């Protein structure tokens, strides 16, 4: 038990370190940018109406205080952390004066839901079929599935999403290819809205599942075809242990341990994929928000989205890591 606590402490230290370095990197990279948020904001505001030079000077004063850009970089950095901890990263430009954090929090559930659902489907499907394919290596059906996985695995997220867009947008337009829900429904807990959300989520989720499936399938197949030659599997087979028990509790169970580590290690990549997919399908998540923010030069929003992405991915990895010792009794006594 103390070992589990020790394991927890180590992972928690890593979590803190990742958040610290990731968020700091985001801060300093954005500060390398030649864009001055105050001037950009001013330009945007003054383009909509004409102001007297005095009014502009006042606004500049207010905005400078708001963004804190007159302080030296290090004290800005300190302020940034202080404000991040209370969830305030200043106003966004896209929807001035809505705080950037509010926009992030609005977009977050869409991304999290898409990510969690597609990752779960991919992980379960890929590992289950990959495991069975590894165990039944001469089965024609699994062999052709393997070929499919090999051809799907290397294709980048963007290309798959794009192909789906072409297929369902132009060739066979049966599924919505843009947005998170139809314009005709009222957001809220009502059936038409929920159905619309699910309908709109199919293509983005499908593209994530298609890309992810291959690597889980191939990884699990390779693992299982190694594990079936392990002595404990051979021994159980020679003892006439039921086939379902062997496949489930001997083969898959042991192969799952490295796969869980793999899940933690790939979450960062999967998140990147989600972001890209969202842009293709114009899905109202963090990805679309980030890309809009970059195009608009929305300094605060870019920083908010990247910081929160780092925190969210690190947190998710932490959670997955915690599963690992529950699956592997050996780690508890190492």
């Amino acid at each position, binding site marked *: 038990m103390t070992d589990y606590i020790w394991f927890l402490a180590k992972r928690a230290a890593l979590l803190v370190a990742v958040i610290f370095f990731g968020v700091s990197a*985001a801060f300093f990279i954005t500060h390398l940018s030649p864009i001055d948020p105050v001037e950009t904001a001013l330009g945007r505001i003054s383009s909509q109406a004409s102001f007297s030079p005095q009014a502009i000077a006042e606004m500049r004063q207010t905005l400078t205080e708001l963004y804190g850009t007159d302080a030296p970089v290090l004290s800005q950095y300190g302020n940034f952390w202080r404000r991040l901890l209370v969830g305030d990263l200043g106003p966004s430009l896209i929807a001035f004066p809505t705080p950037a954090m509010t926009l992030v929090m609005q977009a977050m559930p869409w991304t999290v839901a898409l990510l969690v659902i597609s990752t779960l489907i991919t992980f379960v499907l890929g590992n289950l079929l990959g495991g069975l394919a590894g165990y039944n290596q001469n089965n024609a059906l699994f062999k052709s599935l393997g070929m499919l996985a090999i051809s799907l695995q290397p294709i980048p997220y963007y290309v798959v999403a794009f192909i789906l867009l072409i297929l369902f947008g132009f060739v066979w337009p049966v599924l919505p290819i843009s947005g998170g829900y139809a314009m005709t429904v009222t957001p809220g807990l009502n059936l038409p809205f929920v159905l619309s959300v699910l309908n709109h989520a199919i293509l983005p989720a499908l593209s994530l599942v298609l890309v992810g499936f291959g690597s889980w399938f191939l990884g699990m197949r390779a693992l299982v075809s190694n594990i079936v030659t392990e002595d404990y599997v051979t021994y159980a087979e020679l003892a006439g242990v039921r086939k379902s028990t062997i496949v489930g509790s001997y083969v898959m169970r042991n192969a799952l341990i490295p796969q869980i580590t793999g899940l933690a290690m790939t979450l960062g990549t999967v998140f990147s994929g989600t972001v890209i997919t969202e842009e293709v399908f114009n899905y109202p998540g963090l990805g679309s928000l980030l890309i809009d923010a970059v195009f608009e030069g929305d300094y605060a929003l870019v920083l908010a989205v990247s910081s929160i992405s780092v925190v969210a991915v690190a947190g998710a990895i932490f959670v997955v890591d915690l599963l690992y010792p529950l699956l592997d009794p050996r780690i508890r006594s190492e």
Partner: protein
Amino acid sequence: MFTVLHDLVRYNIEFAIGLGLMTAIVIFAGLSFVSPVDPTMVYLAIPDQPPSAENWFGTNSRGQDLFWQLTFAFRNSLVFGFTVAILSRIISIAVGLTSGYVGGWVDRSLMFVNDIFVAIPIFPVLVLFYFVFRDDLDSFRLALIMACFGWPFDARLIRSVAMGLKHREFTRHAVFAGMSTRKILFEEHLPYVMPIIFSTFMNNMLWSIGFEVTLAVLGFTDINEPTVGTVLYWANSHSAMVVGVWWWVVIPIILVVMTFLGLFLLAVSTNEYIDPRSRLRRMGA
């Protein structure tokens, strides 16, 4: 060397297909050196012409011949992927072998850094860099940045092999034969790490070209440099599919898929072949 290639082509169908695909793509990219047109010039040809005997891959809405345009695009993308793969291999070999052989606190701190790099999502970071560099984010700078993120998985793999090798008896014999650490790492241990380097090289090229495509399509790179990504970017921005210039999108995607499949198959099959265990078995041990 030739017998190895011959063996692989003859007895490993995956390698044969992968090699075939990649040879075709590399020859295609190589044609850019004899191209009669400058890829950066626009409106040199009649726009929106479907594939024909004159323009094999058709022309795009910017009045460029797609065939020659794509030869440049593939050359640039392959060079880009190659650069990222080389640079990140260097980092991962250095980190992996050192971490595994030296061990102790060196290993612990290197792996801590490694874990951090694994956990940081790369796409937002790349977007941040674009935010800073804007259109100055050319292939080479992008390659440098991607190389900084492309090593941690593979360093970990190399480390685990190096750790095993450290405790093999022949390593201790090598130490007592007076070999230097450098000689042990690069002459005794590197051959065992080669299969990993080879197969991850291909995978890394795949990964980096994929990311370049993604970033370029979104417009987050230097869009005036012809790459696979920027070709798709321009097609996208001219709504090629909507206006019916399908070849502008379909042909590059077919070529991209060929490249990716080729690299992937090469990675898988060389990995299996160079693995010291199967290599020993082939030697008849």
